[in-house]
Each structure stands twice: as structure tokens, then as C-alpha cells.
């Protein structure tokens, strides 16, 4: 049984600093038979939160000489806090005739793509690598494709 969803993101990009803030995400999720509405809502919102983190923050940074991860902690393996999270609107599509289908992982997939497209829409240049850090956004604005150094 397939599952689908559509998400739309609104972002603010500071073109001087490259800092991106996601202000709003609308998530429309195909849910099949909804067994518990509150849980389902919260699954989708949680998926969006994860997606915002993929888009802006999460990155495993490996040291090229020692092969060790330099950020194996919550300090520099960054995860957004409350202030970093958008307003999230969840719309559940209830289709009982399809029976019970998954809703845990599917909502995490579209978010960072929608955010990437929103940044492209705002800037007119594509930041080609997640997370969309200030460094990569500035590099994209300077015409270097958003790969950073």
C-alpha cells in the first residue's frame, strides 16, 4: 500500500548572514484509516520537526585525518530548539476504506525538500547541499553553488 503527502514551507533568509529560518510548514498527509487523530497529528508534526532539522542543522562531521566524528554530541551535532521551529499546520487525509497504513516516517521526507525549494524561491539560487547552513547559503549567493568550502 503506498502512502503520499504534500508539504509547503515558508522561509526567511537573511541574505547578509546566510541564516535561514523556517517560519511555517503546511503538511498534508495521506493517512489511510486514522485510528487516533491526536497521535496521528502529532506524528506528522514530529516528522516536520525532524525534516526542519535535516534541512537546517543535522550533520555528522568527520575528521578527514583521524576518521573520528568531531561532533558526537548535542553541542555541535545541531538539533533545533523551540525557537528554531516553524508554525506547523497538519492536515490529515482520512480514507478509512484504505485500512491502516504508515504515518511515522512518511511526513519526514518532504520537509527539507520543501524548505530547499522555498530557499531557491527566495534567493533565485539553489543551495545544493543539506543542511542549509549560513556558510552554504552565502556560498550559493556568491555564485559558488552552495557547497561551502
Amino acid at each position, binding site marked *: 500500500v503506498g502512502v503520499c503527502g504534500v508539504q509547503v514551507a515558508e522561509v526567511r533568509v537573511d541574505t547578509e*548572514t546566510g541564516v535561514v529560518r523556517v517560519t511555517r510548514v503546511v503538511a498534508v498527509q495521506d493517512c489511510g484509516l486514522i485510528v487516533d487523530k491526536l497521535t496521528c497529528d502529532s506524528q506528522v508534526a514530529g516528522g516536520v520537526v525532524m525534516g526542519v532539522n535535516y534541512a537546517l542543522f543535522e550533520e555528522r562531521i568527520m*575528521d578527514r*585525518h*583521524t576518521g*573520528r566524528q568531531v561532533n558526537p554530541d548535542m553541542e*555541535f551535532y*545541531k538539533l533545533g*530548539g523551540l525557537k528554531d521551529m516553524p508554525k506547523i499546520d497538519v492536515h490529515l487525509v482520512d480514507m478509512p476504506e484504505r485500512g491502516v497504513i504508515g504515518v511515522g516516517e512518511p511526513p519526514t521526507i518532504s520537509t527539507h525538500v520543501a524548505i530547499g525549494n522555498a530557499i531557491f524561491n527566495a534567493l533565485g539560487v539553489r543551495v545544493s547541499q543539506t543542511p542549509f547552513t549560513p556558510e552554504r547559503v552565502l556560498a550559493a549567493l556568491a555564485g559558488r553553488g552552495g557547497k561551502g*568550502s
Partner: protein
Amino acid sequence: MKNFVYYRPSTAKDAVALLADRWGSTELLAGGTDLLDLQKEYVAQPEKVISLSGLGKDFREIKAIPPPGTQPMPVTIGAGATLDEIAEHPMLKRAYPALTTAAGMVGGPQIRNMGTLGGNLGQRNRCWYFRDEHVNCLIKGGKHCFALDGENRYHAIFTQGHKCVIVNPSTLAPVLIALNASVEVLGPKGKRTVELAKFFKAPAGPNEREHVLAPDELILSVSFAGKVPGQLWRFGSASYEVRHKQSYDWPLVQAAVAIPHLDGKVQDVRIVLGHVAPTPIVAERAAKMLDGQEITEATAAAAGETAAEGAKPLSQNGYKVKLVAVAVKRALLTAAGHKKYWEA
């Protein structure tokens, strides 16, 4: 964490008497937000931990009472005052918003409730090689700075003359240096006063810290006063941090500015940069070019460009040079009371 003996003296003198005269075997514990992390990672392995929680009220008091008339307001903040107490102090908020803004942006509420002024100034750097127990970096006695040719996106951009390219992690220090603060220190031979602008240094080995204090000295308090009599409420200050995350993150770069009298043309502006070098950096040339000028978007931007001059970034942190210019511009505009165009 390695076992240690815990002490809780009730006077600063007793605390100093317990300190060893070399780094590493004894550590002072204030809020513990840095030391406990270092101990858990086996980066700090002290034999004695000396808690400062038993020290008297003076050690954590904030004295900031406007004197009668138009005199400048002298401020003395005990080293044990928490970051939250500083951030929420009504008189400091009104007179020196740079300081309360910076204090209010450190870590999260838990860190600010525990972390202290003294700890903020004395904390160790956040270099991920330094904090990795398994990496024997230059300032842990090794031969090599791993950040120089390794992962250095958050490291120093003013690197000339430095073998270790950490950034100083304190965000209160640039503000306090901009305010011409000085630190009162207690050692075995008594008290001494150190200008905060001369308090920090770049460590180059395991027997050095990020500051000039001796291993058996303790920070008692930090003092500063509005410089110009009669101008207390015309004193502008601001701290601007460029941050990747808005919650719980270190700044990518920080600019702190102080403008002694905010009437049209300015004089004797102070601009101090944080998170760009092993110590906070006073941007003297940038500040000087504002003498006799009004703070406008153009003059602020020009000062920002000048402040960023001379940077020598590493392989991955060239982007921070541009951020310095932006941070200085925004800090100046904020201090001068301009509308924050970046927060439309």
C-alpha cells in the same frame, strides 16, 4: 569521571588556599556547566574540586545603583552572579543592554540558571579536538593542532601568530571589554586588578589557560562604570551574535559595541569581536574611523568592513569574515537605536 575530593570552603581566602600552583590538579567549581562536562569527558581530571557555592553573598551580588545627580553608574558584579541574574537585572537592562542581551543568549535556561559570570570568563574553549579525550592536541601536550588542517568551520579567522586556533567562547567578555571593565582577582598574595582587555591570552600548551590568571587565583568580581559623567542614559551599547540556531547554540561570530554618548556625532566608540580568535579582539581601527561621525547604515557598514580586515581564515571558515562585517554593522545600528532592518 575520575574520582576527586570535594571541598566547600566558606571564604574566598580558604578557596584560594586549597588551589595548587599548577594547572590541572585542582579545579574551581561554580555552576559546573563547563567543568562537569570536561570531567565526564576525561579532559579535566582534577584531584580536588573546590566548590564556590559556600562563599558569601558578596561573591554573587550585583551592585548597580544609579548615584544621585548625573554621575556615571559604577557597576560591580560578583563572579558568582548567575547569567540569569545578570540578564534579568532591571537596572543593567536599562543602562547596559549589551551585557544583559549577551547574558540572556548563553546556552539555555538551565545553563543560565547555573552558569556564573566568573565561569563564563574562565571557561575552557569549545574546540572539538580539545574536547575529545582521544585527541592529544597541542594544548593538551601534543605536537600538533588538529584544527589547523582538519575540521575548522567554527575556529578562529584571526589566526596570525597562533599555533592553536580556538576561539574564546565567552560572549560576556567582548561586551565587558567594550565597557572597559576590569576584574578583581584573589591570589595567595592578596588581591589584584586586571583590565579585562588584558585578561585573555591564546594558550599554546598544557600549562596555560585561555586567560592570564595563575592556577591559584580566583576571580572575585568584575567592575565597570559609564565613562562619561552626565551621560548615563545616553550611553549606547549592543551585542550582536550571528547564530546558526536561535536556541542553544554558540555564536558563529559576535560583535559588542559601546558608544559613550549618543548625540549625533560619536566619539570613543568601542568595538570588540568575539568567536573569531583565541581571545576577544578590540577592533581599534574600525572604532577610530567613527570618531566625529554619525552612526548611519553607511558608516556602520564601513566600520564593519574595517573590523574584518586582516583576517586570515582557515580552510573552512572564510565565511566568518563576512559575518564579522555584518555583526559589527548591526551591533552599531542597534546601539545607536536604529530600526533593526534585518528583523522586518
